């Protein structure tokens, strides 16, 4: 019982971190929040692993910690240091409007989730709502922000949301698939970082 409540808290913290991400104009804070969000995701997976006693989920937990909590934020910070980007993120709409919009997306995703999913969610009753909301807000981050960096953050948020949804519906994916996905993600982050660096160099020169 308590496990479930705590898992609920972790899932909520994922959503809270995304909302905070929308509300904050600082890139560094956004990367830290992404790291925190991934940590919460990892803990959620750990809860599932303990609950189902599944080796796949344990592996998934370790990989998530290594890649999403440590490596990707590390590379992002490194790139950030190199490009010496502005701390403030440019946006198309104001922050309060964006946050309220994020809230209405959450309402909408709850409505959708209530319509689609009747049963079948195994662990934590509103994981699907939260993952859908995280997905939509991540997409909104990508649309409303101007700099490439924050779009990367939005992309990573979307990835986390899909990961969460997949984990909520299945009892964990096969480890091989997960490693493949994570490597894909990692490579894409590397490529994007290179892209940013090169863009910066070319534009600055």
């Amino acid at each position, binding site marked *: *019982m*308590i496990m479930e*409540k*705590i898992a*609920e*808290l972790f*899932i*909520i913290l994922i*959503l*809270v971190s995304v*909302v*905070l991400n929308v*509300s*904050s*104009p600082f890139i560094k804070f956004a990367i830290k929040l992404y790291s925190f969000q991934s940590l919460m995701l990892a803990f959620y997976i750990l809860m599932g692993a303990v609950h189902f006693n599944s080796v796949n989920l344990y592996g998934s937990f370790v990989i998530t910690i290594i890649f999403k909590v440590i490596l990707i934020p590390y590379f992002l910070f490194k790139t950030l240091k190199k490009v010496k980007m502005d701390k403030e993120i440019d946006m198309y709409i104001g*922050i*309060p409007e964006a*946050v*309220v919009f*994020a*809230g209405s997306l*959450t*309402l909408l995703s*709850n409505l959708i989730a*209530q319509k689609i999913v009747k049963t079948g969610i195994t662990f934590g*009753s*509103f994981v699907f*709502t939260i993952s859908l909301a995280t997905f939509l807000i991540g997409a909104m981050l990508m649309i409303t922000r101007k700099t490439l960096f924050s779009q990367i953050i939005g992309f990573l948020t979307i990835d986390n949301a899909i990961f969460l949804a997949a984990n909520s519906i299945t009892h964990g994916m096969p480890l091989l698939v997960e490693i493949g996905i994570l490597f894909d993600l990692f490579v894409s982050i590397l490529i994007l970082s290179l892209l940013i660096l090169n863009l910066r160099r070319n534009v600055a020169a």
Partner: protein
Amino acid sequence: MNFNGQHLIIGVVQFFIVVILAPFFAGFIHKLKQRARGQKGINIFQFYINFNKLLKKEIVLSKDATFISNIAPYIVFVTYLIILLMLPAFYRYSLLGMSSDVILIAYSLALATFFMTLYAMDQGSAFGGLGAAREWFLTVLSEPSLIFIFISLAIYTKQGRITDIFYFIQKGAENAFLTGSGSSAVSVAIPFLLFISLFIVSISENARIPIDNPETHLELTMFHEANILEASGKHLGLYEYGSYLKLTVFLTVMSLILFPYMAVNIYQIPIAFIIYVLKMIILCALIAGVETVNPKMRVFRVPNILSVSFILSLIAMILSIRRF
């Protein structure tokens, strides 16, 4: 709701204890903040001494003051007293418990703001109008969050009165954690979200540092203090005491969300009281910590953080409607 003599008496006693403790909590926060900055700090009971001193001073009224200046301090003070009369602190029943509707509490806070801002505009001072405009700017942003927090609580517990709300949470938590029954009715996430949301709102409503800085000597940076700049003597004392009461109202609600433990009978009162004071001290330390590590925000960045608080309470409400 039964009228019980014991409830009434303990409700009154509770009210007086909380009212008397209010300046202590404010002074405690102040002391902690000063210690954290490396200063020696004031006496913890300094605010009592200040209040006593203010009562002995004469009032300087502006030439332009009208009847508003004479009644507003009293109305503001009494409004906070009324709200404290409704709140349970460490005993399950409060004196006005049967009419302690959450929306009434939220609107009563607006009533106090209304009179305080009218007071500010009464003397025709430039700072007063500025303070009033800023106070309403904050209230317009934080009032929806506050009402949403309260209504989330009401929907979560299916109770409308604040005494019943917290009693329901307490009962549910007791059942779930001690006996393990009825655990589906209890949530950790909802109180957590509401706590964070209310924390943000109470920082903005109580003129605390990331949003307001009442300690500067520059009137242009003030929100709350600019409203009462013209007050003096017992009027100032009432306003100051009123602000401690407001802080206590918010801290009490936060403490009850954090850990609802209220005495249901007379024998539990000592331990409930001790727990209440402990919770309040922890919250005071939390507020002092936030005030110490944060710099003051730009005014137009305040909507960002208050909108986050609004959305957190919205998420809490979504979670609670999923439960039925």
